[in-house]
C-alpha cells in the first residue's frame, strides 16, 4: 500500500478486468469474487428451492402421489444440504467479499489468490453433491443431519461422494474464514479501531472464528463415517463396540455454531439498514457487539439441546436446558436495540427496510419457538415434529434469507450503479412475506398436533394445514423468480445511483462512486 497521497492514482493506472471467461476463472478481485459467490448462491437457492417444491407437492394431500418415500428422503436431505452449504453460507461470503474491503477502507481481501481458490472449490463440491442424484442407489437420503448408523451401515453407495463434497465445502469455508479474519485484523483504514468497525464487519469477524472452530469438527465426523463405511472401523457401529450417540454429539458440536454462522452476518447487515432507514444512529452499538460475542460463545455449550430425547443423564439435560435458555438474553438485547433504533426515528420503507423489519419480527417469532424448544420437558413433545421445522424455517428464511435480500437491495445501487425497480422489489417483498408465513406458520400447528417431520405421507387430521402450507410454499418459491428479474434489470440499467443513494446511510462504502470502481481505496481513507 502506497502512502503517497495521490487520489487520482486509481483513475489513471488501474488495469480493468480481463476479458472473457478467464476474467472470472483467474480473478483475484474481491468484487468479482463476491459477485460470483452471490450468483452461485442464488443458483443453489433456486435448486434447493425446487427440491422444496417437490416436497411440498408430495405433501399437498395425504397419500403418495408424486414421488416414492425413497426419493422423498433424498429431496429433504439435498434440500437441507444445498440450502445450508450452497445458498446461505456462500451468500454471506459473497456479501463479505464485496462489502468488507469497502467498509473498512481496504483495497481488496488480504489473501486474494486464496479467495479465488475458495470460491472455485464450491462449484466442484456441489457438482459432486448433485451428481449423487444420478448415481445407482440415489442421493443421500438420511437427512441433512446424516445420523449414523442410517448414514453409514445403511447409507446408499453415494455416501462416500457426499463425504468428499462436504470435505471440499469445509476447505472452502475455512479458507474464506481465514481470509476474512486476516482482512479485518490487518487492513482496516487508519483510525478504524475495533470498536469503530461497522457491525457487519464485527459479526463477520465473529462468524469467521466460529467457522474455523467448527468446520474441522464437521470434517472429523464425516471422516469417521468414511472410515466406518470403507475401512472397517466402528466409530458409530454398536455391533463393533461403537457409539451411535457419539455421532450426534460431534455433529451438533459443529451444528449448533453452524446455525449462528448462518444468522450472525444477517444481524450485522440489518444493524446497518435499520438505522439508515430510521435516519437515526444504531441504538446500543457496544451492547450489540457484546451480544454477538456472547451468542457466539454460548453456541459452543448448547449442542445437546438437539438431543434431549437420546437419553443423556439428567444433569446433562439440565445444563443444556439452562445454557440454551441463556441465549435468549443476548438475542433479546439485539431485538430490543433494533426496536429502540426505530423508536422516534424518521422511518421510510424501501425494500431493504421492509425486509429488515420483517426480519426483526419473524426472526423474533423463530426465537420464541426456540425458547419453547429449550424447555427440555416440553421438547419431548416438540422434538422432531413440524414444530421444529417451523422453528428453524422461521429463523432461516426470514432470518438468514430476508437478511440477504435486505442486504442485496441495500447495496445493489453500489454494486451496479443503478437503482433497482422499487415497485417490483416491494412486490417481491410482499409476495415473499405472505408466502413464507403461509408456508411456515401452519407448521407450528401441525407439530403441536403431532405430525412428525421427514415423513412423505401423513395421517388425515393433518391434511388441511399441509395444503395451506404447500400453497404458501409455491407462492414463496415462485416469487423468488421475481428477484432474479429485478437484479437482471438493475444490472442492465435503470435510474443512475449516486454515491450515497440512501440519505440515512453511514459508512465508507458510500464514499466511493456507484458503481464501485474495479479498484477502490488504493489509498486508505482516514477514519476519525
Amino acid at each position, binding site marked *: 500500500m502506497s502512502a503517497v497521497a495521490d487520489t487520482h492514482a486509481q483513475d489513471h493506472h488501474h488495469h480493468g478486468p480481463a476479458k472473457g471467461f478467464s476474467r472470472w476463472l483467474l480473478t483475484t478481485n474481491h468484487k468479482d469474487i463476491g459477485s460470483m459467490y452471490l450468483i452461485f448462491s442464488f443458483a443453489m437457492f433456486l435448486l434447493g428451492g425446487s427440491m422444496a417444491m417437490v416436497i411440498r407437492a408430495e405433501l399437498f394431500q395425504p397419500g403418495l402421489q408424486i414421488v416414492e418415500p425413497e426419493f422423498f428422503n433424498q429431496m429433504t436431505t439435498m434440500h437441507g444440504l444445498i440450502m445450508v452449504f450452497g445458498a446461505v453460507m456462500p451468500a454471506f461470503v459473497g456479501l463479505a467479499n464485496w462489502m468488507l474491503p469497502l467498509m473498512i477502507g481496504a483495497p481488496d481481501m488480504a489473501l486474494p489468490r486464496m479467495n479465488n481458490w475458495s470460491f472455485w472449490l464450491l462449484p466442484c463440491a456441489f457438482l459432486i453433491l448433485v451428481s449423487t442424484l444420478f448415481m445407482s442407489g440415489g442421493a443421500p437420503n438420511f437427512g441433512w443431519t446424516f445420523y449414523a448408523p442410517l448414514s453409514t451401515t445403511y447409507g446408499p453407495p453415494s455416501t462416500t461422494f457426499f463425504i468428499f463434497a462436504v470435505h471440499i465445502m469445509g476447505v472452502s469455508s475455512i479458507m474464506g474464514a481465514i481470509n476474512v479474519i486476516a482482512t479485518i485484523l490487518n487492513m482496516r483504514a487508519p483510525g478504524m479501531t475495533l470498536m469503530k468497525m461497522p457491525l457487519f464487519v464485527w459479526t463477520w469477524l465473529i462468524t469467521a472464528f466460529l467457522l474455523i472452530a467448527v468446520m474441522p469438527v464437521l470434517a472429523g465426523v464425516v471422516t469417521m463415517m468414511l472410515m466406518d463405511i470403507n475401512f472397517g472401523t466402528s466409530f458409530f457401529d454398536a455391533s463393533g463396540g461403537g457409539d451411535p450417540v457419539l455421532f450426534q454429539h460431534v455433529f451438533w458440536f459443529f451444528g449448533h455454531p453452524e446455525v449462528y454462522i448462518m444468522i450472525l452476518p444477517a444481524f450485522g447487515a440489518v444493524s446497518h439498514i435499520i438505522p439508515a432507514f430510521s*435516519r437515526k444512529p444504531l441504538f446500543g452499538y457496544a451492547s450489540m457487539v457484546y451480544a454477538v460475542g456472547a451468542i457466539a460463545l454460548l453456541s459452543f455449550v448448547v449442542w445437546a439441546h438437539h438431543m434431549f430425547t437420546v437419553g443423556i443423564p439428567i444433569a446433562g439435560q439440565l445444563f443444556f436446558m439452562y445454557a440454551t435458555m441463556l441465549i435468549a438474553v443476548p438475542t433479546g438485547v439485539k431485538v430490543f436495540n433494533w426496536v429502540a433504533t426505530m423508536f422516534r426515528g424518521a422511518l421510510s420503507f424501501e425494500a431493504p427496510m421492509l425486509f429488515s423489519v420483517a426480519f426483526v419480527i419473524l426472526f423474533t417469532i423463530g426465537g420464541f419457538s426456540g425458547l419453547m424448544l429449550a424447555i427440555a420437558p416440553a421438547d419431548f413433545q416438540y422434538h422432531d415434529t413440524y414444530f421444529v421445522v417451523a422453528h428453524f424455517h422461521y429463523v432461516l428464511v426470514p432470518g438468514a434469507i430476508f437478511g440477504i435480500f435486505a442486504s442485496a437491495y441495500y447495496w445493489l445501487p453500489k454494486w451496479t450503479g443503478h437503482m433497482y425497480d422499487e415497485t417490483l422489489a416491494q412486490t417481491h417483498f410482499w409476495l415473499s412475506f405472505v408466502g413464507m408465513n403461509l408456508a411456515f406458520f401452519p407448521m407450528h400447528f401441525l407439530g403441536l398436533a403431532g405430525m412428525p417431520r421427514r415423513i412423505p405421507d401423513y395421517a388425515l387430521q393433518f391434511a388441511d394445514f399441509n395444503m395451506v402450507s404447500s400453497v404458501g410454499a409455491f407462492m414463496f418459491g415462485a416469487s423468488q423468480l421475481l428477484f432474479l428479474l429485478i437484479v437482471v434489470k438493475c444490472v442492465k440499467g435503470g435510474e443512475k445511483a449516486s454515491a450515497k443513494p440512501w440519505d440515512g446511510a453511514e459508512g465508507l462504502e458510500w464514499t466511493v462512486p456507484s458503481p464501485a470502481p474495479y479498484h477502490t481505496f488504493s489509498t486508505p481513507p482516514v477514519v476519525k
Partner: protein
Amino acid sequence: MRVHAKRAGVLLGSLLFPAWSMADWTLNMAPGVTGTSNEIFSLHMTILCICVAIGVVVFGVMFWSIFAHRKSQGAKPANFHENTLVEILWTIIPFVILVVMAIPATATLVDMYDTTESDVDIKVTGYQWRWKYDYIEEDFGFFSNMSTSRDEIYNRVAKTENYLLDVDNPLVIPVGKKVRLLLTANDVIHSWWVPAFGVKKDAIPGFINETWTRVDEPGIYRGQCTELCGKDHGFMPVVVKAVPQEEYDQWVADQREAAERERELTEKDWTMEELMERGEKAYASACAACHQADGSGAPPAFPALKGSQVALEDMDAHLDIVVNGVSGTSMQAFGDQLNEVDLAAVITYERNAWGNNTGEMITPKEVFEYKNQE
C-alpha cells in the same frame, strides 16, 4: 370452532376431497392422559403465554414507531443512541423471567427421569420399519406392523379413519400402573412417541433407554416413529391400548398360551400348502416393505427375489441370508425376529411364489436344527 370446521369439511370436502372431510384444524398441543403430559402441557402454555406477552410489548413499540414515526408523516429523527439503565434493565428482566421458567421445568424433568418402582416392564425394540414389544416378566413378545394397506397409501381405495395410524398388534398396558419402557433398536435409530402420554424416547442400537408412563384413562392412543429411520419412516406407527387390570391379566394369559402354542408348532409336520399359506402372511409383514409383495424388490438397495439366484439355487445359502442377514447392507438378520415356523414358511414361500417354482420346502424342524448347530 373445531366442530364447525369439521361439519363444513364433511359437507363440502367429502364431495371434493375425501381426505379433507376427516381433517381438523387443531392449533394447539393437547393436554394428554398422563400426569407427565399434563405437566408438559402446562409448561408449554406458560412459556407460550410469556412469549406472547413479550411479543405484544416489543412489537407494540415497533408498530407504534412504524405508525407514528414515519418520515412521510413529517417525523423528525431523535439522536439518542444509548441508555445504560434501559440496557441493563432489558438484560436483567429477561434473565429473571428465564429463571422463573426454569424452576417448574426442572421439577417436571426430574419427575420424568424417575423410572423406579415400575409395575410392568416392557422392552420396545425399533426395527426397520416396525416395533417389537417384549413383556419381560411374562415371557412373550410380538411385532407391531402398520396395518394400513398400500392401496390406501397409493390412493387406490378411500382412506380409513386411522390412516397410517393402525397396527396389527397394539401394545397393551394396564391403566393406573407405572409402566416402564426399555427402548433399543435393531438397526438404525428410531424414536417411540405417543403424544397423549408425553413420552418420546429414542431407540438406539447398542443402548437401552428408559422411560415410563402411567395412563389413567382406558383407550387407544396413537403415535409415530419420530426419528428418520429410512424409507418407511413415515409408516411405523405406535398404537397403545390401555385396558383395565382384569382385562390386561386375561390378555396376558392368552398371549402366554398363544406363545406356547407357537412353540409347539415347530414340532408339527408341515405340508407345502400350509407353509405357503403361512409364508405369504409372514412375507407380507416382514419382507414386503423392501422386497415388495410381488418379489420385484427395489434394486439396487433391495434386490428382487423373483427369479433370483438366492431363491432358486442353494437352499442353505438362502437360509443363511434370512437367519443371519447380510452385513453392510439393509438385509437384517431375521433369526431372532421370526420364529422357526415363520422362517421356514417365508423361505418356502420365496422359493415357490411368483413363478419361482422350485418345488422345494424347508420345515420348521430343519430351521430349528440349523439355528442350533451354529
